[in-house]
């Protein structure tokens, strides 16, 4: 529809500049011819619809497609009847306590569903809040690290898997604890051979860098060293780093400290200056491809690009705060953190004993591990690769 006001304006143009008349005429004629052609096509289509010719054309095309489909079915019927079933990848979720008790739950990687409750531990065992969680491939080799500096290497498969329906600490695998020592961490070490260095990190943010070749000797001797300078301190994590990797430390109060692994000392040194009540929750290596996820005790999953990280200029610095002062004052604390790819999965252990798995991509979209009205909080959080 062309309103008459518009036609008046065209006429006005011709009155003001008669030289515009042929141009306008040409444009309108060209449009008319275009519309006439379109009109003819539509009329022809209408006749085809009215006479049923179009319906016949479609019916013939559908019959042809059905025939082709049938032929394809026959051609591939053998393959369809007997599809080759690849061996499923198995993932192990290990929940352990300082007394050396370990419960292993085995899950099929191809059956994982986002935001699914895997199991629920008896409340009494969770109440202490000192349980830790590790999720890794069932093919992994594990290193048990005790606060005395003693280590034990063990394949995951040697720890018996328990029934997820009714996990019972009575059936837990028990790694012997000597005297007053405590189990402080279990670390997968299959990546060790691909790394250049291993960094031992303590709860009070002391770090010790160990060359990969020396670490093998340490493991063979069942002793890695306490990795601490203060008596009350304990090892909390090992991180395997490549030559260009960054070491990232994340503290309970939400301070994130990061440095190139190559700049770390081989002697035990205080890396991050923590406040008196703060301690390291986790340490890991990061590369430019990965990004960072931090999970708070209240269940928030905070995603940060690697560019958010600020490289520390020197040791004994506080790191970059993740929370505002108000949030910290309100009691927000970190439960876990990791360097991730969006295709990874995550597992979280809650204070009510529930253990759930999440697809990280969906988790980051949702932003939270817990429903809004949840009374529980997150005890520990672990990530594992899609092909774990």
């Amino acid at each position: 529809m062309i309103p008459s006001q518009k036609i008046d304006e065209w006429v006005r143009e011709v009155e003001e500049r008669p030289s515009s008349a042929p141009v306008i005429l040409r444009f309108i004629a060209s449009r008319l011819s275009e519309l006439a052609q379109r009109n003819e096509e539509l009329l022809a289509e209408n006749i085809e619809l009215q006479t049923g010719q179009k319906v016949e054309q479609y019916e013939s095309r559908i019959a042809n497609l059905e025939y082709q489909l049938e032929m394809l079915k026959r051609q591939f019927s053998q393959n369809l009847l007997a599809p080759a079933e690849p061996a499923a990848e198995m993932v192990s979720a290990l929940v352990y306590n300082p007394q050396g008790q370990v419960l292993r739950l085995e899950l099929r990687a191809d059956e994982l569903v986002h935001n699914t409750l895997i199991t629920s531990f008896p409340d009494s065992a969770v109440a202490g809040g000192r349980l830790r969680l590790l999720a890794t491939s069932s093919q992994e080799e594990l290193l048990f690290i005790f606060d005395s500096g003693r280590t034990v290497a063990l394949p995951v498969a040697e720890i018996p898997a328990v029934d997820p329906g009714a996990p019972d600490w009575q059936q837990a695998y028990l790694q012997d604890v000597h005297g007053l020592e405590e189990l402080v961490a279990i670390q997968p070490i299959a990546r060790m051979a691909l790394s250049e260095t291993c960094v031992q990190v303590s709860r009070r943010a002391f770090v010790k860098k160990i060359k990969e070749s020396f670490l093998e000797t340490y493991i063979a001797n069942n002793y890695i060293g306490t990795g601490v300078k203060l008596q009350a301190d304990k090892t909390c994590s090992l991180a395997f780093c490549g030559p260009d990797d960054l070491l990232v430390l994340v503290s309970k109060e939400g301070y994130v400290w990061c440095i190139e692994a190559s700049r770390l000392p081989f002697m035990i040194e205080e890396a991050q200056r923590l406040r008196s009540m703060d301690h390291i929750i986790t340490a890991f290596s990061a590369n430019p491809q990965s990004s960072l996820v931090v999970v708070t005790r209240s269940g928030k999953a905070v995603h940060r690009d690697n560019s958010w990280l600020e490289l520390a200029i020197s040791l004994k610095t506080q790191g970059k705060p993740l929370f505002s002062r108000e949030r910290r004052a309100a009691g927000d604390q970190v439960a876990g953190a990791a360097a991730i790819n969006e295709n990874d999965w995550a597992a979280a252990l809650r204070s009510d004993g529930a253990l759930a798995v999440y697809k990280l991509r969906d988790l980051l979209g949702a932003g939270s591990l817990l429903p809004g009205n949840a009374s529980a909080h997150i005890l520990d959080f672990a990530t594992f690769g899609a092909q774990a």
Partner: protein
Amino acid sequence: MTLSVGIDFGTSNSGVAVFDGARVRLLPIDDQNVVPEVVKTTLYITKDFHHTIGQEAIELYYRHNVNRLRRFVKKWVGEIDFRGAEMFYVRDVYVYVDELKPGRLLQYIKTALRSQGYQGTQVFDRYYTTADLIAAYLQALKQRAEKLLGEEISQVTLGRPVYFSTDAEQDQKAEDTLRQAAYQAGFQKVQLEFEPVAAALFYEQSLDRPKNVLVFDFGGGTLDITIMSLGDSRRRKVYSSGGIGIAGSDFDRAIIENRMLPHFGKGQVDDNLELIELVNTVADWIALPDLSTPQARMRLKHAIQVGIAPVRLKALESLIFNDLAFTFYNAVEASKIALSDTGASVIRMQAQDIDLWELYTRHQFERDIREYQARIESVLLDTIIQSGLETEQIDAVVKTGGSSYIPAFSEMLNRLFGPERVHSSNMFSSVTAGLAIKAYDSGHS
């Protein structure tokens, strides 16, 4: 010796030039463009934060985006802390993100400098401030120029409009942002020069005796006027400078508002506030790409289903969700440019569900920009009064920039000064060339 260049960072087009003391060399910075010495001020940022500019950016955008698939996911982007008298609580913020979006095209970046509210934009997971956007563009420009010259460029003379803003504080802020962007792009020494002054310096090369010259620099983003005494480099004098933030992009907007919105439902959906809001956004190049959300699509689909202006709203849906905004704005701009040579042109766009045909005449255009014309003439007369010169004392009027070729403004200049005193300088490159001369002069003074 450090190499110094002149860069005209324009609203629609940019350029780079060097001066060797005798001859200005405009660099063929965009070999894919019809005029290689002019590069479109367009920036395309891919998902992996790779930056491309000019025609390459546009072609990459088309290749990546037109008629592509979309998949929206709800993404948590952060929290807002609310503080009341006795309470404090945190609220989650979510946005719908098209996770298949391969990149984002930005144009008219320079207008961000004069926009008070615009601080920057989120591109995928990264926030680009205005300075970051300009720096990304200038850096790509610098790299291309270095490749052509075969050496590193450390110094730059950048053009700036006479007024980014009439508010002195905002004007200073815009200048600081531009300067910061240039440093961010890797230049070690940055100086700024008024764009019309630069155009005057270029014009001065053709003078054999001193003259009072009025430069009418009218481009895509601003109109800048300077009245100067030229012809003797020792006695150069700026009598007055003036300007206004009206130019080509405002005219495009006026055309869209007056002529194009009915093609997308204006006049048929005016009583539906949600729909008319969508339709009106078509005129806003910054906001239009952000309309591609599941909610907007649902709103449009529902309206089409219940028979509200189905053909127009289908066209609007196609414009938004097939990433046709850039094609649309280009069609409008091309038609406007054509009106400088002819009395009528057609704004034409054919795509899925869009068959847009609008015969547009010079009479209609002049009617659409009548309000702007009056303001521009008033700024021009004010600048002449401020110079203390009579119009007769102005020996030459030099017009430069794409919009200065719009017949209504050529006629205005002819009427005020007489056609014999009005000269055309190189439409897109006189500012660039003048900036190169300034860069050379500064290095040798």
